[in-house]
Structures are given as structure tokens and as C-alpha cells.
């Protein structure tokens, strides 16, 4: 266990070179659905980053301290999902109580995140790539931040295009898919910047 890699490098790699949504195409559904305007995109991005960072750590502990010693690694998918769902539920109550203003911003997006595949994807990458605890923390945050960056970028483009004269056949998902494709190509430019996946 433990690749000799600087956690900070992993974070940058997760955010840019192997961006969760633009290189791995995870979390596409909410990426397309919630990117209509920047305010909601920002809220969801923040929530994803927050949850991804904390569930990475939480699932790391569950995986290496419960599942591995008991040889129950094959249960990981279901256990991860349960942990994520319970954690989101808990987080929602906590935020609702202690920071109503943050709850206003994240509120309706938190439950959505339970079924966001970017979260589960992040956790599984962490296991597959044998990250240690510190690396997992930075990886989780980096992946989330990358997702956040991508959705905010997409939403600003969509908002600008709203005023433009677009062929009717392309309005909506069609144009969005094209934008995402071009964004993915642009992000390809980052590859080689950091020599890890």
C-alpha cells in the first residue's frame, strides 16, 4: 500500500489531467441537468467537492479497517453506497441546523449527490490506485474541485449561448453534448503536465 507520490500532485492530477467528468465521464447526468445557470451549478459543485472529500476518507477507513481485515472486499460496492447515502443524510441535517445559509445554497443538491456516480467513482479509484489516507484526502478534494470547475465552466458557456441564435435542432442537450466534447478536448491539453493518472 502507498505509492510514493506527493498528495498535492495527486490533487492537481485529479482536478485537471484526469478530470472526473471530462476525462472519466463520471457524474454526467447531473453535469448536464444542473448546468443551466451558474448559481445552481456552483451549489452542486460545492456539494460534490465537499461530499467527495469526506466520503473518500470515510470509505478509506471502512475499507482498510473493516472490509480488508475481514476479507469482505467483494462487499465494497454496496458498503460504499450505504456509507455515502448515510453520510449525505447526516450532513444534510448537520448543515440545516448549524449553517442555514450554507443549507440554502447546498440544500436541494445534497440528496441528489447520493446517486452521483462521480462520488462512487472517486472512492473506487482511490481503492484501485492504492492511495494512502493522506493521498485519498487530496485525491477526493482534487476530483471534486475538478468536477466543480468543469460544471461552472459549462454553465457559463450555456448561459452565454442562451441569447445566441442557435439552429433549433441543436438547442438543449445537443449543443450541451458538443460543448462537453470540446471541453474534454481542451482538458486533454493538460495531460503530460503531471506524470500520473
Amino acid at each position, binding site marked *: 500500500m502507498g505509492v510514493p507520490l506527493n498528495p498535492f500532485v495527486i490533487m492537481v492530477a485529479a482536478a485537471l489531467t484526469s478530470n472526473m467528468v471530462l476525462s472519466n465521464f463520471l457524474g454526467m447526468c447531473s453535469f448536464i441537468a444542473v448546468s443551466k445557470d451558474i448559481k*445552481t451549478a456552483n451549489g452542486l459543485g460545492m456539494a460534490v467537492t465537499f461530499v467527495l472529500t469526506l466520503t473518500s476518507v470515510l470509505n478509506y477507513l*471502512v475499507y482498510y479497517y*473493516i*472490509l480488508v481485515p*475481514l476479507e*469482505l472486499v467483494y*462487499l465494497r460496492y*454496496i*458498503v460504499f453506497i*450505504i*456509507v455515502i447515502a*448515510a453520510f449525505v*443524510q*447526516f450532513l444534510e*441535517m*448537520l448543515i*440545516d*441546523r448549524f449553517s*442555514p*445559509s450554507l443549507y*440554502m445554497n447546498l*440544500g*436541494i443538491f445534497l440528496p441528489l449527490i447520493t446517486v452521483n456516480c462521480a462520488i462512487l467513482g472517486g472512492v473506487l479509484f482511490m481503492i484501485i490506485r492504492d492511495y494512502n489516507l493522506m493521498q485519498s484526502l487530496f485525491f477526493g478534494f482534487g476530483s471534486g474541485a475538478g468536477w466543480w470547475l468543469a460544471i461552472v465552466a459549462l454553465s457559463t458557456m450555456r448561459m452565454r449561448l442562451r441569447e445566441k441564435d442557435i439552429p433549433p435542432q441543436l438547442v438543449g442537450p445537443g449543443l450541451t453534448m458538443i460543448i462537453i466534447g470540446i471541453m474534454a478536448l481542451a482538458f486533454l491539453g493538460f495531460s503530460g503536465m503531471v506524470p500520473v493518472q
Partner: protein
Amino acid sequence: MQILITALVLGGISAVLAAIISVADAVLNNYGDVKLTVNGSKSYTVKGGSTLLTTLAGEKIFVPSACGGKGSCGLCKVKVLSDIGPILPTELPYLTTKEKSENVRLSCQVKVKGDISIEIPEGLFNIREYASTVSTIKDLTHDIKEVFFSFDDDINFRAGQYVQLIVPPYGEIKESTMRAYSMSSQPSIKNGVELLIRLVPNGIVTTYVHKYLKEKDEVRLLGPFGDFFLRNTDADIIFIAGGSGMAPIKSIILDMKEKGIKRNAYYFFGARSKKDLFYLDLMREIEKEVPNFHFIPALSSPLPEDNWQGEFGLITDVVDRYLTEQGEIEREGYLCGSPGMINACITVLGKHKIPENRIYFDKFG
């Protein structure tokens, strides 16, 4: 052995998480007793943590809600005087700019977390639950039933208002469900209300009424609600409604007849073919007794065997034709129907110079 460990671990993890959540729920969602002040005068001590709508219902104050607190009808608006934080994204679509500046909120979305002071129309204190017995059920058309619910107490309402019908759990439906229906009886009948209920495919309440409800059954009603009623002016009245949208209009017309209101009134009733028409005889009778009332049924696609001699075409086209013939007169519009029909009618009435603030409607979604 392996299976046992698997089950134990999975069960254990779930149990621990469930326990954490229940503890968190009990600790975090416990806001203790809070003070609820209504209209500055009445105050109640209530338990915090639930929505304003449920809390008010617990104190027997029934704020209208057609969707039952799901945040999809926008009827449960309440003016909040205390500071309870910014408007939620789920409320935004239902509030106008004016309402936002006055801090009007959807009571089903707002949680009671501390002392709170609100303002509601005095009329809401009039709203209560009626335990009713079904006295008659009649088939008006192939998909509309006329049901009379009678009760011992008196109900006071204005013609055009509605009640919520509460249907108990049945079959696959595990929760009691509420839907809004306009009274089709006139306010002078006080010991019960008559509702027109059209069968909506897969509708929870309408299916219950059409397939399960029998005479002598006991059903609960909540009401009266609504601000759809005849305004006190001298303008000509244009009623437009089709299908079960007839209900509030019938109530208003019968009320006009009883009160001897002699304003010019035109009722345009749209239907597809003859099998969707009902109350023709009743309307003709009222036409004879109320000299300035005119009933104009129109069919959009009459069948050959209908042998239809009356107005033909979409109801909006028929209204357009009539209003063009009559020229420009001061008018008011009263509409009842689906959102699509209402919007189409507002466009047509707007064309004939009836301003939007003189068009009143009852939209059912």
C-alpha cells in the same frame, strides 16, 4: 461462516449508520417549544422542527394546499413577519416580485425553527374539517360524476370557492390523499356540498370516487378555500369552462339567479362531442328565468350521429367570434379549466381588451 460474517458486517455497518442518523435526527432536529403568533393576536406554543403548514394544521388552521405540501401547487402562501432566512430555491417559481418583497413564503417549504410570527387572511379561521356522508352519486357523462356530500353542520362559502376532498388509503395507495374540487352547489345550500368529479386516468382521488365511493360512505372534507368568486361590478360577464370546470360556474350562476343579479352573462361551454355535454336542460331553464344569461355550448369535433346544430369549433374561436360581433364592451372574464385552456383564453380575451387583472380563473393542474 463466511456468509454469517458477511451478513453481520453488512448488518452491523447499516445498523451503526442508522443509529447515528436517528441520534442525529433526535438531537439536531429538536428545536424545542417555540411560540407561533398569528395575525399579531393569537399565539400558540408548538413543537419546532416541522414545516409551517403541518404546524398550522396541528393548531387547526388550514392553509390551502392542493398538492398536500409537496411544493408543487404554490397555494399555501403565508406572509411571514419574523426573519426566517432567505427564500428557498423550491419556493422561487411560485412567488411574484411583490410577494418576495413582502416576505410571502410557501408554508409547506418553510420550517419552524424558532419563534415565528405570521399573517394570514382572517377567512382561513373559517376553514375547518367536515365529516360528511355521501348522499347521492349521479353519472353526468361517461367520465364525470356529480356527488353530493351532506353533513350536519352549516358551511358558509362564496360561490366559486373549493373544498379539499380527503380520500383514505385504498388498494395500492398507502397514504390518505387530498385534492381540491370546486363546489357546484350554491351557497344557500348549507348542509352539504355538491362536487363534480371527472375521472383522470391514474388519478388517486378521482379513481377512488369513480371506482370505490358508494352512497352512505363517510368522507372528510376541508374548506372552504379560494378567491375565485364573482366581483361586484356592472361589467358584462364572460364565463368559459369545459368538463368538470362547470362546477364553480354553475355555483356562481345559481347564486346570481337567487340574488337576482341581472348583469349580462355569457357562458361558453366547450366539449369535444355530444357525449361530453351535460346540464343542458338545467342551463336552458336558467336562461329562461334569468333574462340576461346566455348559455353557449360548442363542440370541437361532433360525431356525425350527434346531429349537432349549435356552435362548432374550438371554444377560443367561438368566444372570439362572439366578442367580435358584440364589439367593445366593458367585460370581466371568469375561467375554469386546465392551464393550457386558461392561457389560450387569456390570449383571446386580451385581444378583446379585457385586461389581465379583470380575468379571474381557477386553474387545475
